């Protein structure tokens, strides 16, 4: 029976859903529940990772170090993982203290064409004897050949796995099959897939990824995550079990954990709102959605127009400042019409 490694970024991707306002009590409660369910890896932090708390992408309620401390105290068997995006996070300011705080695994991410900015961060994690994964973001934007080339760079830097992120929720199962498939065929390290649910494809895409050779999958409690959310971990575990894969996760307890999350973390359950569909079609980073909603209200614009304009400009994660620029431009255009 093939084993699938499940990573749970509820406390990282879910941070986008609440404007990065996750509290100490919430972290403690969910970490306890996830740990009890036997989820192998729990990812914690600001939605854009360590060192990302900013006006650009949103300020965190808690400092990075505080979040890690609480998570560490409440995880006994699950590994504690963080997400770092070079350009936001630096080795000295962010990575070093995080490893000192007891982090076990690090995902070093880059936009899907920029893998070479991860070299130093991945090397640093490896030198410290911790688990290092490479993440390629917004992977719907480029061809499978380009993804293979970039993934190979990460592998050469020492990544112990490469995860393709469908950061905009734009994939269909056929895309997953092609892109995950080519990596699984050619890489010497495990391949992972991180889904978003904008087009209601998160579970289907995760299944397609496993069938194409992925052995790492991401899921969050009830799909708690940016935009329309991620793959619901409790459903993912059930589906994988039905398909005959083992995850090492206790199904009853992961169902319980997702109830804990719903009660403790979520004001509203993740759902596919009309603008999430548009965001997925436009291929815009899911983390933009809260900002777009706010700016659209402020400038009295249709958020859908903003999404399509952002899609046209091929914005990448970290370019949230362009939302305001696009809004100002659209409202000026409206005035002149």
């Amino acid at each position, binding site marked *: 029976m093939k084993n699938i490694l499940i990573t749970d970024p509820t406390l990282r991707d879910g941070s986008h859903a609440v404007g990065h306002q996750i509290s100490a009590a919430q972290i403690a409660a969910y970490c306890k529940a996830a740990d009890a369910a036997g989820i192998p890896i729990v990812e914690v932090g600001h939605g854009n990772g360590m060192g990302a708390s*900013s*006006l*650009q992408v949103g300020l965190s309620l808690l400092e990075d170090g505080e979040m890690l401390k609480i998570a560490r105290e409440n995880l006994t068997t699950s590994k504690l993982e963080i997400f770092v995006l*070079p*350009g*936001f996070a*630096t*080795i*000295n*300011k962010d990575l070093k203290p995080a490893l000192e705080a007891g982090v076990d695994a690090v995902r070093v991410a880059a*936009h899907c*064409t*920029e893998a*070479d*900015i991860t*070299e*130093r961060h991945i090397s640093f994690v490896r030198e410290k004897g911790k688990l290092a994964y490479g993440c390629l973001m917004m992977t719907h934007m480029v061809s499978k050949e380009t993804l293979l080339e970039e993934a190979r760079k990460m592998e050469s830097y020492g990544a112990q796995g490469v995860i393709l992120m469908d950061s905009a929720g734009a994939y269909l199962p056929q895309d997953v099959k092609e892109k995950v498939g080519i990596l699984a065929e050619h890489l010497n390290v495990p391949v992972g897939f991180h889904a978003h649910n904008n087009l209601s494809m998160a579970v289907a895409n995760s299944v397609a990824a496993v069938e194409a050779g992925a052995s790492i999958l991401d899921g969050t409690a009830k799909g708690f995550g940016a935009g329309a959310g991620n793959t619901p971990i409790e459903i993912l575990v059930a589906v994988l079990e039905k398909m005959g894969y083992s995850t090492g996760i206790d199904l009853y307890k992961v169902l319980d954990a997702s109830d804990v999350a719903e009660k403790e973390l979520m004001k509203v359950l993740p759902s596919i709102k009309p603008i999430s569909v548009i965001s997925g079609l436009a291929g815009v980073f899911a983390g933009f959605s809260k900002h777009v909603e*706010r700016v659209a209200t*402020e400038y009295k614009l249709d958020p859908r127009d903003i999404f399509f304009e952002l899609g046209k*400009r*091929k*914005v*990448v994660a*970290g*370019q949230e*400042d*362009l939302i*305001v*620029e696009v809004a*100002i431009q659209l409202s000026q255009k409206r005035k002149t019409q």
Partner: protein
Amino acid sequence: MDSKKLKVAILGSGFIGTDLLIKILRSKYLDCTLFVGRNLQSSGMSKAVSLGVAVSDRSIEAIAENPKNFELVFDATSAHFHQIHAPILKKLGIIAIDMTPAQVGGMCIPAVNLKECLDKDNVNMVTCGGQASTPIAYAIGQVHKDVDYIEVISTIASRSAGPATRANMDEYIETTEKAVKVFSGAKKTKAVLVLNPAQPCINMQTTVFAKISKPDMVAINIAVDDIVKKMQKYVPGYSLVISPTYENNRVITMVRVQGAGDYLPSYAGNLDIINCAAIATAEEYAKRKYGIQEY
């Protein structure tokens, strides 16, 4: 040779060095007496030869052998080599403009602290994002002495970021944060760098966010307009995309830098602005030395 021109050399025949050369050839105040690298066959060297500029492949030795020929040297090699070059240039009495992240000398942002830099024999040009964002942060800091926080985000075209830029993103962030803090007086600063691979290549864009308890938007706008005009004197492609705007409890200002397209393509505003700043600094040394008054 015009005796009123400052004799300068360029160390480093890469993209930055070659673009500097083309800018110097246009300058009324600078005369490039030697273009120095390590490989006579590099495209930068070939370009220099085609422009009739004297070249050498003997690096710092070429300068040390004939120090009388040089009053100022632009060092566009690397931080590692500038550490070696800096004491040699100092001993020879040659002013160094450091284009690398070595930070041997003081930070120089011409629109902000040009006059005080002229007393130093080694100045550092900070970073591309620092050259674009610091003037805005400084202008805001002049209006409000108690700025809580300033954050600067620069997005550059992926193609304009070479292997050195990519390997040194951490140093970029640290240096830029330091410059913004020193010149704005903000209590806390943060810098972010984003690479965007979109085709056609995007121009460099920099956003400055400021947290100020009671921002005087009229005064901030006047100060920012002033500094932008000052910037445009030495960086023609520098423009304001969003004037200081109060939005979501923060002041947001956005600038764009389009390059002159000398040796580098125009989208590489990030490389252009740091070179423009270096030229402006060298020209100021020249004007002071020869007592030239601008009119």
